[in-house]
Every structure is written in C-alpha cells, then in structure tokens.
C-alpha cells in the first residue's frame, strides 16, 4: 500500500507574522518549519511502514523553495521520498486553488491512503483534507485520534464533543490525524543524515497539468480586504497572595457581577 502524507511549511510560531502588500503571508521572509500538527500524520505513516501495512511513504507539499526544509524534517521522522510543488503561480491561492494543486500532486503520486494533520498551524482551516478528498473522488475519515488500516479500509476513532465514534471508510481515502494520535519520534542524527539522501522530486504546476488560471491570487474566490491589529487587552492588576488572594478575586468577581 502506498501512503502519501500532506505536509505544510508554516511560519515559526515564535515569530510575528509579516504580510505582503497584497495581504498574503510573506512566507519567504519568515523563518518556517514543518507544521507541528503534521508531525502526527507523518508519525502514523511511518508506523504503517514499519508494521508492513504500507510499503511506501511519500511526503507531499506545495510551497516556496524553503518548504523543502519541511519535507526533510518529515523524511527524518521517516518515509521514502517526497514531492515538492514549487511555482510562483501558486502564490496567493485560496483553499480552492491549494486543494486543486495538492489533489493533482496526489493523483500523480497514486496513493491508496492520504494522511494529513488536523489543521495547519497558520491558517488553521481544517478543510483541506475534505476538499482534496472531494477533488480526488475518494472517501474521508477526519479528526482521527487513533487509526487502524488493513488492505481495504481504514477505521478511526473520532472524538466530537458529544460522543466518541468509530468511523470506517473504504480505501482509497483521506484521513486527517489529530494531536491525540502518538507523538512523532524525535529523529536520530542518523535519521537526519539519511533523510538528506532521500529523493525529493520538484514539480511545477505545468508538470501537474494544472491550468494556471485556476490558481493563484487572481483566481481566488475570496479577497482579503484588510488586516488590522486587535487592540491589546488593557493591562490588568497582578497581586501576590498574602493570604488575601481569594478575597481579592471574590471582590473582583462581585464587582463584575459574577457572584
């Protein structure tokens, strides 16, 4: 079974975001890394490879040249190869455009199972897995806290706030993995070195047969009008508990009508 993992190169969480004049994120100007939530998906793919359920794991990303670093990190956790779609035409794509490019990359890879994180840590939309699955015409099982795969189907535990469900989907399928699934292993030095030698195929949008008029900022179905800083919360009061801490809070809650 061939497993593909969709990964994303995102801004380093400690760095403030910078925006371009067209209101897009300036991904090239910022330090970036493999989205932390994608590591859970990478780890699940690697476990499937180790157990023999999968015989090949390919990591796939669309992003600027720097996104290659995210692929190397994923390969260091495990996996056989990667595909990197790099093309200026992708800049400013909305979810429709991004899902189109990813779906075509996946079609070319030909995976039986596609794993993704539950959301990217920058846009945090959580909708790409469903959009990609729809474009590929395959089933989905999303927000998996745990998954089991056999040759024909994937079975997941999906937790909602009302219930815990077991959902199964026939393969081929797209499965998104939450942070409740196992932590990704910390790559050994040897794994990092080996990852540098694993093949990474670089593709353009033309290589995928994607019509450039369907992607990029000009094709987007949404347009960001403005981005403005949120007024910071007014600084509050900090007191040290000298035995009166509870009293201070009680008085405060009283004054605000909570008691």
């Amino acid at each position, binding site marked *: 079974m061939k497993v593909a993992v969709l990964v994303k190169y995102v801004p380093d969480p400690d760095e403030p975001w910078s925006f371009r004049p067209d209101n897009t994120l300036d991904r090239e100007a910022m330090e970036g890394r493999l989205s932390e939530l994608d590591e859970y998906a990478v780890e699940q793919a690697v476990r499937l490879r180790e157990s023999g359920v999968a015989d090949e794991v390919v990591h796939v990303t669309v992003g600027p040249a720097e996104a290659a670093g995210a692929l190397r990190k994923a390969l260091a956790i495990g996996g056989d190869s990667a595909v990197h779609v790099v093309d200026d035409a992708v800049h400013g794509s909305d979810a429709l455009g991004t899902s189109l490019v990813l779906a075509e990359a996946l079609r070319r890879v030909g995976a039986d199972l596609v794993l993704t994180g539950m959301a990217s840590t920058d846009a945090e939309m959580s909708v790409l897995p469903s959009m990609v699955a729809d474009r590929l015409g395959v089933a989905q099982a999303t927000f998996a806290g745990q998954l089991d795969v056999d040759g024909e189907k994937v079975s997941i535990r999906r937790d909602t706030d009302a219930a815990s469900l077991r959902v199964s989907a026939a393969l081929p399928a797209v499965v998104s993995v939450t942070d409740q699934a196992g932590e990704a292993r910390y790559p050994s030095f040897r794994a990092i070195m080996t990852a540098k030698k694993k093949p990474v195929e670089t593709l353009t949008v033309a290589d995928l047969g994607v019509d450039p008029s369907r992607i990029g900022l000009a094709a987007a179905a949404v347009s960001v009008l403005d981005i403005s800083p949120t007024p910071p919360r007014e600084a509050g009061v900090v007191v040290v508990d000298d035995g009166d*801490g509870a009293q201070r809070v009680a008085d405060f809650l009283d004054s605000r009508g909570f008691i």
Partner: protein
Amino acid sequence: MSAVLVLAEATGSGVRKATFELLTAARRLGEPRAVVVGEAADDVVAALGEYGATTVYAVPAPEARQDLSVPTAEAVVEVARRVSPVAVLLGSGPLGKDVAGRVAVRLDSGIITDVVDVGLDGDAVVATQSIESGLFAARTKVLRGPAVLTVRPNSIGAEAASTTTPTVETLDVSFSDVARAAHVDETSPKAGTGRPELTEATVVVAGGRGVGSSDGFTVVEALADALGGAVGASRAATDSGWAPHDLQIGQTGITVAPNLYLAAGISGSIQHRAGMQSSNTIVAVNKDPDAPIFSIADLGVVGDLHSVLPALTDLVRERRQ
C-alpha cells in the same frame, strides 16, 4: 431577500446553541433557512423557527446520518443548488469543517472558516476572522459562489427572532458511492456532567499543569460548580491524564469565549491563549509571576491555586446565599 442556508445540528438534548448562533448570523445576510439531516422532529422545527428559520429542508434518507460528513455535505449541496443562497453557514466543529470543505469545492465557492462576524458589502458577503492567535483581525470578501462560512462558537450571540413556524420541505437526495463509503460503526455518547457544555458556558474555570494531579482537579471543579460554570483544562493537564481530552482548551482543542475565564495553574502558552483570549474577563492564578497568562489577565494572583481556589470557592458560596 436572499436565502441563507444554515446546517442545523442537534443532539439528544435538542438543537445546539451553535445552530441558534448561525441563524442569528444568517439574519444579517438574508433569510435563514435550515438544513436538517435526518428526520425533522416538531420540536427541532419549532426551535429553529424561534431563531428565524423560515424554511426547514429535511433530508431523511438512511445514508444521511447527521454524524457522517459526506452524506451531510451532499445534502447541503443539493439544497444549495435548488435555493441559490447567498451564503451557507456551518458550525466550526469537525462536522461543520468537513461539510464546508466539500460544499465549497462542489459549488466552486469562496470559503472562510472560524468567522467571528459577518455582514454584507453591497451584494457581497464579508466575514471577519481573528488570526495569528488573536493578534490580528482579517476582513475577507467572498467573490464567487454562495459564501461558505464556518462560524466560531460564542462569537455572535444567539438572539431569538419573532417566532415563525417554518415550512418543512422534505427532500430526496441520491447519494454518491463516496457518500456510502464511510460508516459509523460505534457511537459512545459522552456522559453528561451536569455542568454547562464548554463551548456554550458563560463561565469557565480551567486547570493546567499547576493542578498537579487528577485529584487536584477537584478544586477546579468545586469552583466551577460554585460559579455555575464549565470545567476546562490546558493541554498539559489533559496530556497528563488529569482531565479528559474533550475539556482541552486551545489551538488543538476547543475555543471558548465566555464572560469569565478563570485559569488556574495555566502558564498561558500561545497555543492555549488561542483558545480563550477572546474571553470577556480573565482571572489567572499561578505560582509563577512570569507566567505569560498574566499579560492577558484582568486580575492575576501569584499564589498556590491549591489554597486560593478552595478559599475562593467558600467565599463564592457564602456570597451566593
């Protein structure tokens, strides 16, 4: 007036508060019409009417389970094709996100997630999001297709409208093979706690690493009960097994925006703050004077939550009598 579709969600206890929030938001854009997957029971229809739904589209086929994403998406797409709404509003939980994604692809529509406000700019739908852990507000206009929007809970307060009795239309939808390719094999409903649901509560008391143990959580629970609130937890606490994962507040858990958020033993990482910084009033108790949570708290107490919380609980109970 243009129609606005709202995907209604209901549990055993009735229509979810988030659905009433969607209907309220829908009224800012046009005429709200609800989509119900499964049977549209009379009490559900009446409740939807109280929040302004003029029509309820019921899709009752057996494949159309409310908890399966693809049949639900296909049901919504079918209604949207018939009704040509200006927008489709959904919740921001797993189901809402899954359905929104597929609907956006099928209708070739602009999609905006976790919106905190909606409005019209001429004929175009404009939505506001809180981005980069609440540091920025982004306003985005939909250029194409019915605007597919998922709405963050507790951002647009639910407001009842003058009660209408909605017309109910039942639709037969033929579902694709892909819709039939997934099954729910088992459902384990979560046990009710008797406390308000976290996403709906007006008061939340949350415990973090400082709580120290499962037993330690009883002081958090006691204060929540005294204030009539819900119990939440940081990821550190749930990862340590001191509280169930479905109480986790933060980037990978639940986002809340209650009137009062009391953080006990929570340092306040960016990932945690992403889940609660829109709370109206924030109180923090932490041993560490440098804990980042103090920078967003209206009142911070540097101290041991194991002594502050029980004392506070007693004071609250006294004053409430």
